[in-house]
């Protein structure tokens, strides 16, 4: 029987992968993907908690959908920034993006 803890473990694993990717990857798109990993890990948590703790309500699902919506907006913005940076300066490596730095 697959219980709550299984879901939580999967989510935690996903989250850690996301963190790892955010911290170590040089490519900005990979960093963005890492962030998506983290957000989805939370989504899994929310849905799982909802299912096991309060099945009658759908709060967790609603929250998850919200996060998906926000994440979509955030990704499109992030990609837009990365794309325009790439077009103008041919940059994808995150540590080379220092135009606004002091």
């Amino acid at each position, binding site marked *: 029987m697959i219980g709550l803890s299984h879901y939580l473990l999967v989510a935690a694993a996903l989250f850690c992968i996301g*963190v790892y990717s955010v911290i170590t990857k040089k490519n900005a798109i990979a960093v963005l993907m890492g962030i998506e990993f983290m957000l989805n890990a939370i989504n899994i948590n929310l849905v799982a908690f909802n299912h096991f703790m309060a099945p009658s309500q759908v709060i967790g699902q609603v929250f998850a959908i919200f996060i998906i919506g926000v994440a979509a907006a955030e990704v499109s913005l992030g990609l837009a920034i990365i794309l325009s940076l790439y077009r103008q300066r041919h940059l994808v490596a995150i540590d080379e993006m220092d135009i606004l730095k002091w």
Partner: protein
Amino acid sequence: MDQFTWLIPTLPLIAFLIIVGITYRFKLLSAIVATSFSLGSLFLAISILIQKIQSPKTTETFINWLTLTANQQTVLTLQMGYLMDPLAAVMCLIVTLIATLVLLYSIGYMKGDDGFSRYFAYISLFTFSMLGLVISNNYFQTFVFWELVGLCSYLLIGFWFFKPAAADASKKAFITNRWADFGFLVGIIGLFTHFGTFNFAELSTVISLHQNTLVLLILGLLVFLGPMGKSAMFPFHVWLPDAMEGPTPISALIHAATMVAAGIYLVARGYILFASVDSVMIVIAYIGGFTALFAATIALVQRDIKRILAFSTLSQLGYMMMALGVGSMTSGMFHLTTHAFFKALLFLGAGSIIHAVHDQDIFNMGGLVKKMPITVWTFVIGSLALSGIFPLAGFWSKDEILTVTLQHHFMGLFILGTLVAFLTAFYMFRLIFIALFGDNRSGHHAHESSWTMTLPLLILAILSIIAGLVNTPWFYQWTGMSFSTFLFFKEPEVPVIHWSIAVLSSLAAMSGILFAWIIYSKQQISADKLAQRFKGAHTLLLKKYYIDEIYGWLFNKGLLGLGKVFNFIDHILIDGLFDGTATLIRSSGVQLRLFQTGRLQQYALVLFIAIAAMTIWGVR
């Protein structure tokens, strides 16, 4: 007729507006507009004066220009209106008459000047302001027009603004007057604070009941600062000689006959304030007397024809102020009236001469009597009147002043006055013998001026001869009134002649003329040798007692120095303090910035470690 009083200043104002708005490009039309409107004012002034002579009652009308209320109660009222009494009527006549003559004269004098219309506009504005001042019924309105005549004086002295000397002189005149007006302004505000009104009539009622002499003393002296500035009393006299940089008709109108007399007029108008405290009157008398002597001595050695006349004006204004100070308003006003005629005549004559010779140095003139007889002989009449020769206008008024000085037991001032009479005759005839008679020293080609210029000279010459007669016993016997009974303060004074004083002052004047004749016409005594002999005194007089230099030093070192000090405080101390704070924050930022490496992923690592740590700590 009194109800038309407001029209007297309004006509020149309309002329000003017409010239500025419509006829600015049509030069001659501007002059005609200005002159004809001024003539209209003159007729009004004459008819009002005649009516006043028939029934000398005072009329006062005003509107509330501005009223402030607090809790439905009026706390401040500023009035604009007119007060028509004999004093105002006489002054209106003088101003409109001289203004009309000067305007007529200026048509010839200013011919061909680029600013012809501007000139006539300014004079119209001046006439408006001066008349507004004359008919004013309260100190506030007086102050308003007081400043406006000052403005017109500034504009007209600096009329040829491209001449640095003229620009300097106009600025000097305005600022010197501002110092004096500062006192005047504080004085009238003090009057309002203490007595709750600016109105002359109401003030005279409250002041005569008031007991606190200290307040009256302070306020009287403060208000008197205004007249001191406008009438160029020592130590505010410095602007008047420099004001001669303006066109000569302006010197005649503003800086001899009318505006400078405004100070005298104001003292006469607010006489009750000054007369209520003896020490104020004494200050007024001695400042007047000192200025009279001081200016007369400087006039002895000047070379510029207009400057000589300017110092003479200063001296005569001092005379009038002295008369007011010793307690005779009528004699001061009488001298103001006669002086207006003959000094305007002298200035216009000087203008005519300058117009012909194109030079202002009297030593570059000479031999003018054949070439321009009307100018020369009217000038001589003016000089005789100024020197106080019987029976010309100056004789009567000067005599009157000396008499009252003696009557009020000011022996020192009487001697001083007689001495000034001698000096006046001397420097005027020095001017005449050098500049008008003798040889042509510079080869100039002078010729008589046109009729617009000589006609005013003739009219003023006639007035200079006969104007004094209105205050003689004979006139009083003939008509039952005289200048001093018409224009009385407290009780009418019937004119009498004190023959001893008359003889004494005539002797003084005659000997002055005689000395001038000996030195400058016969050349029995060399003027140069005299100058060599008294070199120190001569230089002192030539440099006008170094007052200008002292003021210049005070301004440059004192005021500008203070400005530099304050500027330093502003820039170094205050900016230093505030910018220093900013710099401190900035430099600490520079140090703290080292924590910010700018590596995004490093931040993220720290972030996650921190969150993990907090979570573990929280769970535990």
